[in-house]
Protein backbone atom coordinates (compact mmCIF):
# COMPACT_ATOMS: atom_id res chain seq x y z
CA UNK A 1 0.00 0.00 0.00
CA UNK A 2 2.79 2.44 -0.77
CA UNK A 3 2.03 5.99 -1.73
CA UNK A 4 -0.64 5.39 -4.34
CA UNK A 5 -4.00 4.86 -2.70
CA UNK A 6 -4.98 8.47 -3.41
CA UNK A 7 -5.38 7.43 -7.04
CA UNK A 8 -7.88 4.77 -6.05
CA UNK A 9 -10.19 7.23 -4.34
CA UNK A 10 -9.81 9.81 -7.08
CA UNK A 11 -11.53 7.36 -9.38
CA UNK A 12 -14.44 7.04 -6.98
CA UNK A 13 -15.15 10.60 -5.87
CA UNK A 14 -14.67 14.10 -7.20
CA UNK A 15 -13.84 17.17 -5.15
CA UNK A 16 -16.87 19.49 -5.17
CA UNK A 17 -16.27 22.92 -6.66
CA UNK A 18 -17.61 24.62 -3.56
CA UNK A 19 -14.91 22.91 -1.51
CA UNK A 20 -12.14 23.96 -3.87
CA UNK A 21 -13.53 27.50 -3.78
CA UNK A 22 -13.60 27.58 0.03
CA UNK A 23 -10.06 26.30 0.18
CA UNK A 24 -8.86 28.98 -2.23
CA UNK A 25 -10.62 31.68 -0.24
CA UNK A 26 -9.04 30.44 2.96
CA UNK A 27 -5.59 30.54 1.42
CA UNK A 28 -6.21 34.07 0.13
CA UNK A 29 -7.36 35.33 3.53
CA UNK A 30 -4.45 33.66 5.21
CA UNK A 31 -2.08 35.32 2.78
CA UNK A 32 -3.54 38.73 3.58
CA UNK A 33 -3.14 38.09 7.28
CA UNK A 34 0.46 36.98 6.80
CA UNK A 35 1.12 40.13 4.84
CA UNK A 36 -0.42 42.27 7.56
CA UNK A 37 2.00 40.64 10.00
CA UNK A 38 5.00 40.95 7.73
CA UNK A 39 6.11 44.22 9.29
CA UNK A 40 5.97 42.93 12.82
CA UNK A 41 3.54 42.17 15.58
CA UNK A 42 -0.02 43.44 15.59
CA UNK A 43 -3.29 43.05 17.48
CA UNK A 44 -6.35 41.51 15.88
CA UNK A 45 -8.11 44.86 15.22
CA UNK A 46 -4.86 46.13 13.69
CA UNK A 47 -4.57 43.06 11.47
CA UNK A 48 -8.21 43.42 10.45
CA UNK A 49 -7.74 47.09 9.57
CA UNK A 50 -4.55 46.44 7.63
CA UNK A 51 -5.72 43.37 5.73
CA UNK A 52 -9.36 44.26 5.29
CA UNK A 53 -10.29 40.80 6.58
CA UNK A 54 -13.25 40.95 9.02
CA UNK A 55 -12.08 40.70 12.64
CA UNK A 56 -13.96 37.49 13.40
CA UNK A 57 -12.34 35.77 10.42
CA UNK A 58 -8.96 37.09 11.54
CA UNK A 59 -9.58 35.47 14.94
CA UNK A 60 -10.43 32.13 13.35
CA UNK A 61 -7.57 32.04 10.86
CA UNK A 62 -4.97 33.55 13.16
CA UNK A 63 -5.82 31.13 15.94
CA UNK A 64 -5.60 28.24 13.51
CA UNK A 65 -2.17 29.53 12.46
CA UNK A 66 -1.23 29.69 16.14
CA UNK A 67 -2.37 26.10 16.60
CA UNK A 68 -0.18 24.96 13.72
CA UNK A 69 2.82 26.93 14.95
CA UNK A 70 2.82 29.64 12.27
CA UNK A 71 2.03 32.44 14.67
CA UNK A 72 2.92 33.12 18.28
CA UNK A 73 1.15 35.33 20.79
CA UNK A 74 3.07 38.10 22.49
CA UNK A 75 2.26 40.59 25.21
CA UNK A 76 -0.98 42.46 25.86
CA UNK A 77 -1.36 45.96 24.48
CA UNK A 78 -1.30 48.98 26.81
CA UNK A 79 -5.05 48.98 27.40
CA UNK A 80 -4.80 45.29 28.34
CA UNK A 81 -7.57 44.63 25.83
CA UNK A 82 -5.79 42.74 23.05
CA UNK A 83 -2.75 40.52 22.59
CA UNK A 84 -0.08 41.09 19.97
CA UNK A 85 0.64 38.31 17.50
CA UNK A 86 3.62 37.76 15.26
CA UNK A 87 4.72 35.32 12.61
CA UNK A 88 7.01 32.60 13.78
CA UNK A 89 10.40 33.01 12.17
CA UNK A 90 10.71 30.48 9.36
CA UNK A 91 13.19 27.85 10.28
Amino acid at each position, binding site marked *: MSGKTIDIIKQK*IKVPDALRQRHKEYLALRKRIREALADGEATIPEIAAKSGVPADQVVFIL*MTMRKYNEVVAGE*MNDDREYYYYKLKADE
Partner: protein
Amino acid sequence: MEDILQDSSVKVADSLVVGGGIAGLEAALNLANTGQQVVVVEKDLSVGGRMIHLSKVFPTLDCSACITTPKVSEAARHPHINIITNCELKQISSDENSYWHVRLQINPRYVNESLCTGCQDCEEACPVVVRDEYQYNLVGRKAAFIPFSIASPRVAAIDIDNCILCGACEKACGPGAIDFSQEPVQTEWVVKSIIIATGFKLFDSDKIIRYGSGKFKNVLTAMQMERQLVPTRPFNTVLRPGDGKIPEKIAYVLCTGSRDESVGNPICSQICCMYSIKQAQLLLGALPMVDVTVYYLHIRAFGKGFDEFYQQAKMMDVNFIKGKVGRIRELENGDLVVRYEDIASGQVMEATYDLVVLSVGILPNMDVEKIAGLETLELDPFKFLNQRHEMTNPFKTNLPGIFMAGTASGPMDIPDSILSAGAVSALVNKYNKQLLETTVNSLEITSWND
Protein backbone atom coordinates in the same frame (compact mmCIF):
# COMPACT_ATOMS: atom_id res chain seq x y z
CA MET B 1 -20.85 6.34 -3.66
CA GLU B 2 -18.85 3.52 -2.18
CA ASP B 3 -19.06 -0.21 -2.00
CA ILE B 4 -19.84 -1.70 1.32
CA LEU B 5 -17.82 -4.75 2.21
CA GLN B 6 -19.61 -7.49 4.06
CA ASP B 7 -17.78 -9.33 6.76
CA SER B 8 -19.57 -12.65 6.62
CA SER B 9 -18.26 -14.01 9.93
CA VAL B 10 -20.64 -13.44 12.83
CA LYS B 11 -18.93 -12.26 15.99
CA VAL B 12 -20.10 -13.06 19.49
CA ALA B 13 -19.95 -11.08 22.74
CA ASP B 14 -21.93 -11.05 25.97
CA SER B 15 -23.00 -7.42 25.76
CA LEU B 16 -22.91 -4.59 23.30
CA VAL B 17 -22.63 -1.03 24.53
CA VAL B 18 -23.89 1.69 22.21
CA GLY B 19 -21.88 4.83 22.91
CA GLY B 20 -18.32 5.19 24.23
CA GLY B 21 -18.88 8.15 26.52
CA ILE B 22 -18.22 8.00 30.23
CA ALA B 23 -21.41 6.03 30.96
CA GLY B 24 -20.80 3.47 28.23
CA LEU B 25 -17.15 2.98 29.14
CA GLU B 26 -17.89 2.70 32.85
CA ALA B 27 -20.53 0.05 32.16
CA ALA B 28 -18.17 -1.79 29.80
CA LEU B 29 -15.37 -1.76 32.38
CA ASN B 30 -17.62 -3.02 35.14
CA LEU B 31 -18.84 -5.89 32.98
CA ALA B 32 -15.42 -6.73 31.60
CA ASN B 33 -13.96 -6.82 35.10
CA THR B 34 -16.37 -9.63 35.96
CA GLY B 35 -15.36 -11.63 32.91
CA GLN B 36 -18.05 -10.55 30.43
CA GLN B 37 -17.00 -9.97 26.83
CA VAL B 38 -18.10 -6.51 25.79
CA VAL B 39 -18.10 -4.69 22.49
CA VAL B 40 -18.40 -0.91 22.57
CA VAL B 41 -19.52 0.88 19.42
CA GLU B 42 -18.90 4.60 19.06
CA LYS B 43 -20.03 6.70 16.15
CA ASP B 44 -17.33 9.32 16.66
CA LEU B 45 -13.62 8.92 15.82
CA SER B 46 -12.70 8.73 19.50
CA VAL B 47 -14.28 7.43 22.67
CA GLY B 48 -14.61 9.66 25.72
CA GLY B 49 -17.93 11.29 24.88
CA ARG B 50 -18.62 14.76 26.15
CA MET B 51 -16.68 14.44 29.35
CA ILE B 52 -13.26 14.19 27.74
CA HIS B 53 -13.78 17.70 26.33
CA LEU B 54 -14.66 19.41 29.60
CA SER B 55 -12.38 21.57 31.71
CA LYS B 56 -12.72 21.14 35.44
CA VAL B 57 -15.87 19.55 36.74
CA PHE B 58 -18.18 20.66 39.54
CA PRO B 59 -18.33 20.73 42.47
CA THR B 60 -14.87 19.40 43.27
CA LEU B 61 -13.14 21.26 40.40
CA ASP B 62 -11.10 18.21 39.53
CA CYS B 63 -9.73 18.04 36.03
CA SER B 64 -12.13 16.24 33.73
CA ALA B 65 -9.41 14.78 31.52
CA CYS B 66 -7.66 13.37 34.59
CA ILE B 67 -10.77 11.35 35.35
CA THR B 68 -11.74 10.38 31.83
CA THR B 69 -8.45 9.40 30.23
CA PRO B 70 -7.42 6.70 32.73
CA LYS B 71 -10.84 5.08 32.24
CA VAL B 72 -10.52 5.42 28.48
CA SER B 73 -7.11 3.79 28.39
CA GLU B 74 -8.15 1.06 30.80
CA ALA B 75 -11.08 0.23 28.53
CA ALA B 76 -8.96 0.46 25.38
CA ARG B 77 -6.49 -2.15 26.55
CA HIS B 78 -8.89 -4.39 28.47
CA PRO B 79 -8.71 -7.93 27.13
CA HIS B 80 -12.48 -8.30 27.43
CA ILE B 81 -13.41 -5.04 25.72
CA ASN B 82 -13.49 -4.47 22.00
CA ILE B 83 -13.93 -0.81 21.08
CA ILE B 84 -15.06 0.03 17.57
CA THR B 85 -15.00 3.72 16.67
CA ASN B 86 -16.37 5.54 13.61
CA CYS B 87 -19.09 2.97 13.59
CA GLU B 88 -22.85 3.11 13.16
CA LEU B 89 -25.62 0.74 14.10
CA LYS B 90 -27.49 -0.47 11.05
CA GLN B 91 -29.94 -2.97 12.41
CA ILE B 92 -30.93 -4.67 15.64
CA SER B 93 -33.14 -7.73 15.76
CA SER B 94 -33.71 -10.61 18.13
CA ASP B 95 -33.79 -14.33 17.42
CA GLU B 96 -35.95 -17.11 18.83
CA ASN B 97 -33.49 -17.61 21.70
CA SER B 98 -33.77 -13.95 22.65
CA TYR B 99 -30.24 -13.18 21.58
CA TRP B 100 -29.81 -9.84 19.86
CA HIS B 101 -28.29 -9.60 16.41
CA VAL B 102 -26.65 -6.29 15.70
CA ARG B 103 -25.42 -5.21 12.29
CA LEU B 104 -22.71 -2.58 12.44
CA GLN B 105 -21.07 -0.51 9.79
CA ILE B 106 -17.51 0.60 10.39
CA ASN B 107 -16.89 3.64 8.25
CA PRO B 108 -13.49 4.24 6.73
CA ARG B 109 -11.17 6.66 8.45
CA TYR B 110 -8.74 6.21 5.52
CA VAL B 111 -6.01 5.52 8.02
CA ASN B 112 -4.82 2.09 9.05
CA GLU B 113 -5.22 2.23 12.83
CA SER B 114 -2.57 -0.35 13.57
CA LEU B 115 0.08 1.42 11.49
CA CYS B 116 -0.59 5.01 12.60
CA THR B 117 1.80 6.20 15.29
CA GLY B 118 -0.06 9.43 16.02
CA CYS B 119 2.89 11.57 14.90
CA GLN B 120 0.72 14.18 13.11
CA ASP B 121 3.02 14.41 10.07
CA CYS B 122 -0.07 14.03 7.85
CA GLU B 123 -1.77 16.84 9.71
CA GLU B 124 1.17 19.13 9.11
CA ALA B 125 1.19 18.24 5.43
CA CYS B 126 -2.55 18.73 4.84
CA PRO B 127 -3.30 22.13 3.29
CA VAL B 128 -7.04 22.21 4.00
CA VAL B 129 -8.43 24.05 7.02
CA VAL B 130 -12.02 23.58 8.20
CA ARG B 131 -13.80 24.39 11.44
CA ASP B 132 -12.74 22.10 14.27
CA GLU B 133 -15.86 20.53 15.71
CA TYR B 134 -13.93 19.32 18.75
CA GLN B 135 -13.19 22.96 19.57
CA TYR B 136 -16.83 23.81 18.86
CA ASN B 137 -15.84 25.69 15.69
CA LEU B 138 -13.77 28.34 17.45
CA VAL B 139 -10.62 27.40 15.56
CA GLY B 140 -9.65 25.39 12.49
CA ARG B 141 -8.32 21.92 11.93
CA LYS B 142 -6.95 20.07 8.94
CA ALA B 143 -8.78 17.55 6.77
CA ALA B 144 -6.15 15.01 7.80
CA PHE B 145 -6.19 15.19 11.55
CA ILE B 146 -6.02 13.62 14.96
CA PRO B 147 -9.42 14.48 16.41
CA PHE B 148 -7.97 15.93 19.62
CA SER B 149 -4.81 15.52 21.61
CA ILE B 150 -6.17 13.00 24.12
CA ALA B 151 -8.29 11.09 21.61
CA SER B 152 -8.52 7.32 21.92
CA PRO B 153 -7.52 5.75 19.66
CA ARG B 154 -4.97 8.48 19.12
CA VAL B 155 -4.71 7.91 15.40
CA ALA B 156 -5.34 10.16 12.45
CA ALA B 157 -8.41 10.24 10.23
CA ILE B 158 -9.18 11.81 6.89
CA ASP B 159 -12.25 14.01 6.75
CA ILE B 160 -13.14 12.89 3.25
CA ASP B 161 -15.98 15.40 2.87
CA ASN B 162 -13.44 18.20 3.14
CA CYS B 163 -10.51 16.48 1.43
CA ILE B 164 -9.21 17.97 -1.82
CA LEU B 165 -7.53 14.66 -2.70
CA CYS B 166 -4.09 16.23 -3.00
CA GLY B 167 -2.37 13.18 -1.56
CA ALA B 168 0.04 15.21 0.58
CA CYS B 169 -0.82 13.24 3.71
CA GLU B 170 -0.07 9.94 2.08
CA LYS B 171 3.34 11.18 0.99
CA ALA B 172 4.12 12.54 4.46
CA CYS B 173 3.17 9.39 6.35
CA GLY B 174 6.28 7.44 7.33
CA PRO B 175 4.70 4.15 8.30
CA GLY B 176 2.36 4.16 5.29
CA ALA B 177 -0.77 4.28 7.38
CA ILE B 178 -2.87 6.44 5.06
CA ASP B 179 -5.14 4.22 3.00
CA PHE B 180 -7.67 5.80 0.66
CA SER B 181 -8.75 2.39 -0.57
CA GLN B 182 -10.74 1.72 2.62
CA GLU B 183 -14.44 0.95 2.25
CA PRO B 184 -17.21 0.78 4.82
CA VAL B 185 -17.34 -2.67 6.38
CA GLN B 186 -20.50 -4.25 7.71
CA THR B 187 -20.28 -6.88 10.37
CA GLU B 188 -22.73 -8.75 12.55
CA TRP B 189 -22.54 -9.34 16.28
CA VAL B 190 -24.67 -11.65 18.38
CA VAL B 191 -25.05 -10.59 22.00
CA LYS B 192 -27.17 -11.39 25.02
CA SER B 193 -27.81 -7.81 25.99
CA ILE B 194 -27.44 -4.25 24.80
CA ILE B 195 -26.75 -1.11 26.82
CA ILE B 196 -27.82 2.12 25.20
CA ALA B 197 -25.51 4.88 26.39
CA THR B 198 -25.92 7.31 23.55
CA GLY B 199 -25.85 10.43 25.71
CA PHE B 200 -27.50 13.69 24.83
CA LYS B 201 -27.58 16.39 22.21
CA LEU B 202 -26.98 20.02 23.04
CA PHE B 203 -29.83 22.40 22.43
CA ASP B 204 -29.21 24.42 19.26
CA SER B 205 -29.31 27.98 20.57
CA ASP B 206 -29.63 29.40 17.05
CA LYS B 207 -33.30 28.46 17.38
CA ILE B 208 -33.86 31.28 19.88
CA ILE B 209 -33.53 34.13 17.43
CA ARG B 210 -33.90 36.91 20.01
CA TYR B 211 -30.58 35.88 21.62
CA GLY B 212 -28.68 36.35 18.36
CA SER B 213 -26.80 33.08 18.67
CA GLY B 214 -25.03 32.22 15.44
CA LYS B 215 -25.41 35.81 14.30
CA PHE B 216 -23.67 37.91 16.93
CA LYS B 217 -20.04 36.81 17.06
CA ASN B 218 -19.66 37.35 20.78
CA VAL B 219 -22.62 35.25 21.82
CA LEU B 220 -21.16 31.85 22.70
CA THR B 221 -22.64 28.58 23.80
CA ALA B 222 -21.50 27.22 27.13
CA MET B 223 -19.60 24.41 25.37
CA GLN B 224 -17.62 27.01 23.46
CA MET B 225 -16.76 28.71 26.74
CA GLU B 226 -15.94 25.31 28.24
CA ARG B 227 -13.37 24.77 25.48
CA GLN B 228 -11.91 28.21 26.14
CA LEU B 229 -11.24 27.09 29.71
CA VAL B 230 -9.43 23.79 29.08
CA PRO B 231 -5.64 23.59 28.87
CA THR B 232 -5.91 22.57 25.17
CA ARG B 233 -8.05 25.61 24.46
CA PRO B 234 -8.42 27.13 21.00
CA PHE B 235 -7.10 30.62 21.79
CA ASN B 236 -4.75 29.66 24.60
CA THR B 237 -6.56 32.22 26.73
CA VAL B 238 -10.13 33.46 26.98
CA LEU B 239 -10.97 35.83 24.12
CA ARG B 240 -14.09 36.94 22.39
CA PRO B 241 -14.30 35.35 18.96
CA GLY B 242 -15.56 38.51 17.27
CA ASP B 243 -12.33 40.47 17.56
CA GLY B 244 -9.97 38.74 19.98
CA LYS B 245 -10.68 41.14 22.83
CA ILE B 246 -10.00 40.02 26.38
CA PRO B 247 -13.48 40.09 27.92
CA GLU B 248 -14.08 42.06 31.09
CA LYS B 249 -17.84 41.72 31.45
CA ILE B 250 -19.42 38.35 30.79
CA ALA B 251 -23.08 37.37 31.16
CA TYR B 252 -24.57 33.89 31.43
CA VAL B 253 -28.13 33.25 30.30
CA LEU B 254 -29.42 30.15 32.07
CA CYS B 255 -32.26 27.94 30.84
CA THR B 256 -31.42 28.54 27.18
CA GLY B 257 -33.56 25.85 25.61
CA SER B 258 -34.66 24.35 28.93
CA ARG B 259 -37.88 24.87 30.90
CA ASP B 260 -39.18 26.51 27.76
CA GLU B 261 -42.36 25.22 26.16
CA SER B 262 -41.88 27.60 23.25
CA VAL B 263 -38.90 25.53 22.07
CA GLY B 264 -40.60 22.26 22.92
CA ASN B 265 -38.51 21.43 25.97
CA PRO B 266 -40.48 21.87 29.19
CA ILE B 267 -38.01 20.11 31.49
CA CYS B 268 -34.96 21.30 33.39
CA SER B 269 -31.63 20.15 31.98
CA GLN B 270 -30.26 19.59 35.46
CA ILE B 271 -26.63 20.50 34.72
CA CYS B 272 -26.60 24.03 33.28
CA CYS B 273 -26.84 25.91 36.59
CA MET B 274 -23.87 24.05 37.97
CA TYR B 275 -21.66 24.14 34.89
CA SER B 276 -22.34 27.88 34.55
CA ILE B 277 -21.43 28.49 38.19
CA LYS B 278 -18.30 26.43 37.64
CA GLN B 279 -17.35 28.36 34.50
CA ALA B 280 -17.93 31.61 36.38
CA GLN B 281 -15.49 30.47 39.06
CA LEU B 282 -12.93 29.35 36.50
CA LEU B 283 -13.25 32.64 34.60
CA LEU B 284 -12.55 34.57 37.76
CA GLY B 285 -9.39 32.51 38.10
CA ALA B 286 -8.37 32.90 34.45
CA LEU B 287 -9.15 36.61 34.05
CA PRO B 288 -8.61 38.42 37.33
CA MET B 289 -10.34 41.59 36.12
CA VAL B 290 -13.48 39.93 34.87
CA ASP B 291 -17.05 40.54 36.09
CA VAL B 292 -19.43 37.65 35.68
CA THR B 293 -23.20 37.98 35.88
CA VAL B 294 -25.55 35.00 35.84
CA TYR B 295 -29.19 35.51 34.80
CA TYR B 296 -31.29 32.74 36.28
CA LEU B 297 -34.81 31.69 37.16
CA HIS B 298 -33.97 29.19 39.89
CA ILE B 299 -30.56 27.84 40.77
CA ARG B 300 -30.69 24.06 40.76
CA ALA B 301 -27.77 23.30 43.04
CA PHE B 302 -29.16 20.07 44.43
CA GLY B 303 -26.39 17.46 44.50
CA LYS B 304 -23.69 16.60 47.00
CA GLY B 305 -21.64 19.74 47.60
CA PHE B 306 -23.54 21.73 44.95
CA ASP B 307 -25.24 24.34 47.12
CA GLU B 308 -21.97 24.93 48.94
CA PHE B 309 -20.37 25.48 45.51
CA TYR B 310 -23.07 27.99 44.62
CA GLN B 311 -22.51 29.86 47.87
CA GLN B 312 -18.78 29.87 47.15
CA ALA B 313 -19.44 31.53 43.77
CA LYS B 314 -21.46 34.22 45.52
CA MET B 315 -18.58 34.77 47.93
CA MET B 316 -16.27 35.19 44.94
CA ASP B 317 -18.56 38.01 43.79
CA VAL B 318 -20.22 36.28 40.89
CA ASN B 319 -23.30 38.42 40.36
CA PHE B 320 -26.56 36.46 40.34
CA ILE B 321 -29.62 38.21 38.94
CA LYS B 322 -32.99 36.54 39.10
CA GLY B 323 -34.54 37.55 35.86
CA LYS B 324 -35.72 36.47 32.48
CA VAL B 325 -33.61 37.61 29.54
CA GLY B 326 -35.87 38.85 26.79
CA ARG B 327 -33.56 39.92 24.03
CA ILE B 328 -29.90 40.47 23.21
CA ARG B 329 -28.75 43.14 20.80
CA GLU B 330 -25.34 43.80 19.31
CA LEU B 331 -23.57 47.16 19.32
CA GLU B 332 -21.23 48.24 16.59
CA ASN B 333 -18.12 47.46 18.63
CA GLY B 334 -19.32 43.90 19.15
CA ASP B 335 -20.56 44.51 22.71
CA LEU B 336 -23.91 43.02 23.61
CA VAL B 337 -26.88 44.61 25.35
CA VAL B 338 -28.89 42.20 27.46
CA ARG B 339 -32.49 43.25 28.07
CA TYR B 340 -34.07 41.47 30.99
CA GLU B 341 -36.94 41.54 33.42
CA ASP B 342 -35.39 42.07 36.84
CA ILE B 343 -37.49 40.16 39.34
CA ALA B 344 -36.06 41.96 42.39
CA SER B 345 -37.25 45.35 41.14
CA GLY B 346 -40.02 44.20 38.87
CA GLN B 347 -38.60 46.32 36.07
CA VAL B 348 -37.25 45.75 32.60
CA MET B 349 -33.57 46.66 32.54
CA GLU B 350 -30.58 46.59 30.23
CA ALA B 351 -26.90 45.89 30.76
CA THR B 352 -23.95 45.76 28.37
CA TYR B 353 -21.41 42.93 28.16
CA ASP B 354 -18.32 42.01 26.15
CA LEU B 355 -19.44 38.44 25.88
CA VAL B 356 -22.65 36.52 26.47
CA VAL B 357 -22.64 32.81 27.20
CA LEU B 358 -25.84 30.87 26.56
CA SER B 359 -26.17 28.04 29.06
CA VAL B 360 -27.72 25.64 26.61
CA GLY B 361 -29.72 22.73 27.83
CA ILE B 362 -29.56 19.12 26.83
CA LEU B 363 -31.95 17.23 24.62
CA PRO B 364 -32.51 13.57 23.91
CA ASN B 365 -30.16 12.16 21.33
CA MET B 366 -32.61 11.46 18.53
CA ASP B 367 -30.23 8.90 17.04
CA VAL B 368 -31.64 6.55 19.65
CA GLU B 369 -34.99 6.68 17.94
CA LYS B 370 -33.38 5.88 14.69
CA ILE B 371 -31.76 2.68 15.89
CA ALA B 372 -32.79 0.41 13.11
CA GLY B 373 -35.46 -2.16 13.67
CA LEU B 374 -36.23 -1.09 17.22
CA GLU B 375 -39.54 0.69 16.70
CA THR B 376 -40.89 -0.99 19.82
CA LEU B 377 -38.36 0.67 22.12
CA GLU B 378 -40.37 3.00 24.35
CA LEU B 379 -39.55 6.66 24.75
CA ASP B 380 -40.90 8.97 27.44
CA PRO B 381 -42.91 12.13 26.66
CA PHE B 382 -39.65 14.05 26.27
CA LYS B 383 -38.18 11.49 23.84
CA PHE B 384 -35.64 10.15 26.27
CA LEU B 385 -35.67 6.38 26.76
CA ASN B 386 -38.62 5.46 28.92
CA GLN B 387 -37.81 4.38 32.46
CA ARG B 388 -40.75 2.09 32.80
CA HIS B 389 -39.83 1.03 36.32
CA GLU B 390 -38.40 4.36 37.38
CA MET B 391 -38.58 3.75 41.11
CA THR B 392 -37.04 0.35 41.52
CA ASN B 393 -35.53 -0.72 38.22
CA PRO B 394 -34.71 2.56 36.56
CA PHE B 395 -32.38 1.38 33.81
CA LYS B 396 -34.45 -1.33 32.15
CA THR B 397 -36.15 -0.50 28.87
CA ASN B 398 -39.39 -2.15 27.83
CA LEU B 399 -37.48 -4.73 25.77
CA PRO B 400 -35.86 -7.70 27.50
CA GLY B 401 -32.09 -7.50 27.39
CA ILE B 402 -31.96 -3.84 26.43
CA PHE B 403 -30.81 -1.46 29.13
CA MET B 404 -29.86 2.20 29.35
CA ALA B 405 -27.09 4.13 31.03
CA GLY B 406 -26.28 7.80 31.47
CA THR B 407 -28.23 10.61 29.86
CA ALA B 408 -30.03 8.36 27.36
CA SER B 409 -32.78 8.24 30.00
CA GLY B 410 -32.82 11.95 30.83
CA PRO B 411 -30.69 14.81 32.07
CA MET B 412 -28.02 13.73 34.55
CA ASP B 413 -24.72 15.05 35.88
CA ILE B 414 -21.47 13.11 35.69
CA PRO B 415 -21.65 11.44 39.13
CA ASP B 416 -25.19 10.25 38.43
CA SER B 417 -24.21 9.02 34.95
CA ILE B 418 -21.39 7.01 36.44
CA LEU B 419 -23.71 5.58 39.10
CA SER B 420 -26.27 4.65 36.45
CA ALA B 421 -23.56 2.87 34.50
CA GLY B 422 -22.60 0.94 37.62
CA ALA B 423 -26.22 0.08 38.27
CA VAL B 424 -26.83 -1.11 34.75
CA SER B 425 -23.82 -3.39 34.84
CA ALA B 426 -25.27 -5.16 37.87
CA LEU B 427 -28.54 -5.68 36.01
CA VAL B 428 -26.80 -6.82 32.82
CA ASN B 429 -24.57 -9.24 34.66
CA LYS B 430 -27.63 -10.87 36.15
CA TYR B 431 -29.53 -10.83 32.88
CA ASN B 432 -26.68 -12.45 30.95
CA LYS B 433 -26.28 -15.08 33.64
CA GLN B 434 -29.97 -15.91 33.69
CA LEU B 435 -30.27 -15.95 29.92
CA LEU B 436 -27.68 -18.69 29.93
CA GLU B 437 -29.46 -20.64 32.65
CA THR B 438 -33.07 -20.39 31.62
CA THR B 439 -35.35 -19.68 28.74
CA VAL B 440 -36.54 -16.17 28.31
CA ASN B 441 -40.10 -16.94 29.32
CA SER B 442 -39.15 -18.06 32.78
CA LEU B 443 -36.66 -15.22 32.97
CA GLU B 444 -39.47 -12.74 32.64
CA ILE B 445 -41.11 -14.30 35.66
CA THR B 446 -38.07 -14.44 37.89
CA SER B 447 -36.82 -11.03 36.97
CA TRP B 448 -38.83 -8.91 39.27
CA ASN B 449 -41.49 -6.24 38.71
CA ASP B 450 -42.26 -6.85 35.07
